[in-house]
């Protein structure tokens, strides 16, 4: 199976980080199940030492994990357990019984999962060991993972910079080797953009590919549970396990995920670049030079590998950003109405409030500023006198954009853009204007609106460039397996570069119990 190339300057660091792929771990533990216990003990101990510097995790579930590992180790692998013994980390907005599902919000302080999400059930049925929960922006609203009651997540390449958001904790955990696969959720880029900032793969499945049952809803017509990984093979395995029709989520796709592995060649693939969108970012000075260089290089390398690169224009893309925020916030204002301090979560303590006042006080105390801002925007977009002009127009714009993509995909197989306009920016950057932050999502949100599948891959960088840069490939809804196979092709042609965060993070070395077996 292919693995992504690791440039020589980072190879020495590999020995310090547990860069075990899910497939190599599953294979090893299937033949040596009794090595699992010491592996997990070492892993959790190492993670607990390393996490404070980056604040990626909100909990490590030691007891539950060791119990599960002991059970798995004593009975050995069973038929179909393709993820036997593989450690996986969950964003803390995905339900798992007994795990914190706080969504990085005060309003859900202390709340623990009361049922398992479908994705969780499927991963566990495949033998995976879900062992920790990851930090995030509150209710998945944010692009920097600074909107968290747990504090911000730090970029492992530069601790003074953001991880990206909202699934920042999961991205960093994958980058640092806390697990080969971690789960986030992507509503407007919340997995792809942190993947870009942290130098790993972040894959947003087609809308409906993975059941949303058990994912705390933000924008129900946009959300997808989405994996991070460090190899294309791991993406393929994890999607095969998680994806599929679910009677508990009526929006799931009927057609199953069938692996496309090994069938695609780059030669002849038609790659479209939405030139207008990219040029606008470049000309307005919003596209960082390292991102522009990475995109130009990818274009040249794809041509050299035999792909056809074609300029395309996507009708409706210039109104994608406002359409997204109006639709997402409208849906969020409805979805977050359940957090009223009555049945679960934090309730205001004052005694003499009537019911409406109790709701209002509990929510005011429990939600952070960005969540309140988006609820207000969503409530506005749906309110009498404004709904037609804002929400109505946004939905029409969405449909136009979806048609625009459909047209473009008649002449190209896949679209290529930067994932984000810049690499990771500094923590604590103060913006008076909230819309400047929203521009971070300019390249990612169209895929959510049009229900496409999309992946961010880490671009190879010049020796002088340090911060990871991601490039995004988008394919039509339903072509997830094809897109994963495209990532395999990129690996084989060295068109993406998996890196390791440097010593500057000063993390202790993780013991490598698999080194005797020659596994990295």
């Amino acid at each position, binding site marked *: 199976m292919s693995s992504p190339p690791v440039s020589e300057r980072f190879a020495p660091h590999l020995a310090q980080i547990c860069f075990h792929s899910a497939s190599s771990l599953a294979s090893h533990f299937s033949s040596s199940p009794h090595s699992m216990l010491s592996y997990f003990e070492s892993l959790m101990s190492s993670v607990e030492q390393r996490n404070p510097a980056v604040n990626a995790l909100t909990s490590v579930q030691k007891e539950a994990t060791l119990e599960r590992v002991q059970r798995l180790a004593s009975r050995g692998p069973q038929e179909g357990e393709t993820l036997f013994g593989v450690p996986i980390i969950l964003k803390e907005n995905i339900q798992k019984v007994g795990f914190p599902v706080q969504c990085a919000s005060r309003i859900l302080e*202390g709340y623990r999962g*009361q049922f398992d999400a479908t994705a969780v059930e499927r991963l566990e049925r495949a033998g995976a060991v879900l062992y920790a929960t990851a930090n995030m922006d509150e209710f998945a609203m944010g692009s920097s993972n600074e909107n968290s009651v747990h504090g911000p997540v730090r970029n492992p390449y530069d601790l003074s910079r953001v991880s990206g958001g909202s699934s920042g904790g999961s991205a960093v955990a994958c980058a640092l080797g806390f697990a080969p696969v971690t789960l986030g959720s992507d509503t407007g880029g919340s997995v792809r953009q942190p993947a870009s900032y942290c130098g790993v793969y972040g894959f947003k499945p087609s809308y409906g590919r993975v059941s949303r049952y058990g994912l705390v809803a933000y924008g129900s017509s946009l959300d997808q549970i989405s994996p991070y990984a460090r190899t294309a093979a791991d993406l393929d395995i994890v999607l095969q396990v998680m994806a599929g029709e679910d009677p508990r989520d009526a929006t799931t796709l009927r057609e199953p995920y069938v692996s496309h592995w090994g069938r695609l060649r780059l030669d002849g693939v038609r790659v479209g670049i939405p030139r207008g969108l990219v040029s606008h970012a470049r000309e307005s000075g919003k596209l960082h030079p390292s991102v522009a260089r990475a995109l130009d290089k990818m274009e040249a390398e794809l041509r050299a590998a035999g792909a056809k690169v074609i300029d395309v224009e996507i009708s409706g893309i210039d109104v994608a950003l406002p359409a997204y925020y109006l639709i997402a916030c409208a849906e969020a*204002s409805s979805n977050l109405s359940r957090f009223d301090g009555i049945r679960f979560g934090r309730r205001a303590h004052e005694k003499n409030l009537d019911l409406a006042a*109790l709701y*209002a006080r509990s929510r005011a105390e429990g939600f952070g500023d960005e969540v309140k801002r988006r609820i207000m*925007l969503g409530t506005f977009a749906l309110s009498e006198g404004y709904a037609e002009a*804002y929400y109505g127009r946004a*939905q029409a*714009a969405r449909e136009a954009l979806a048609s625009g993509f459909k047209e473009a995909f008649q002449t190209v197989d896949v679209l290529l853009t930067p994932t984000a306009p810049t690499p990771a920016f500094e923590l604590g950057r103060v913006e008076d204007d909230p*819309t400047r932050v929203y521009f971070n999502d300019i390249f990612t949100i169209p895929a959510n609106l049009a229900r496409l599948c999309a992946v961010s891959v880490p671009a190879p960088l010049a020796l002088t460039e340090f911060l990871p840069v991601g490039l995004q490939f988008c394919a039509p809804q339903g072509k997830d397996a094809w897109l994963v196979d495209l990532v395999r092709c990129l690996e084989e042609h060295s068109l993406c570069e998996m890196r390791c965060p440097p010593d500057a993070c000063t993390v202790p070395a993780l013991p490598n119990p698999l080194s005797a077996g020659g596994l990295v």
Partner: protein
Amino acid sequence: METLPSQTVARLARTARLELTPEELERSGHDLQKILAAFESLSTFVPREGSQGPADTVRLNEGSEARGTSRPDNVLNALDKAAFLAQAPDSDGVYVRVPLILGGGS
């Protein structure tokens, strides 16, 4: 667009069940104003010929492989009552306790 009146912002906060201080209401009004100004391009967006606007949203599912929206009327996701009540902010072990709603409140 015209400036959002402060009564509108206050009404939105009530609708959203958010108790905001006067300062928060003012800041919220400014934020909304900035966001809506940035979204001005949407006000000049003209849907393409043949598009039927928001009621057409359901058509987005056409041509996709989405499953049917009906299924047998069976409970698929029952929560254990004790587990549920254990995390209620205030419970008597049988019911969730809430403020009195008869004879008062809006």
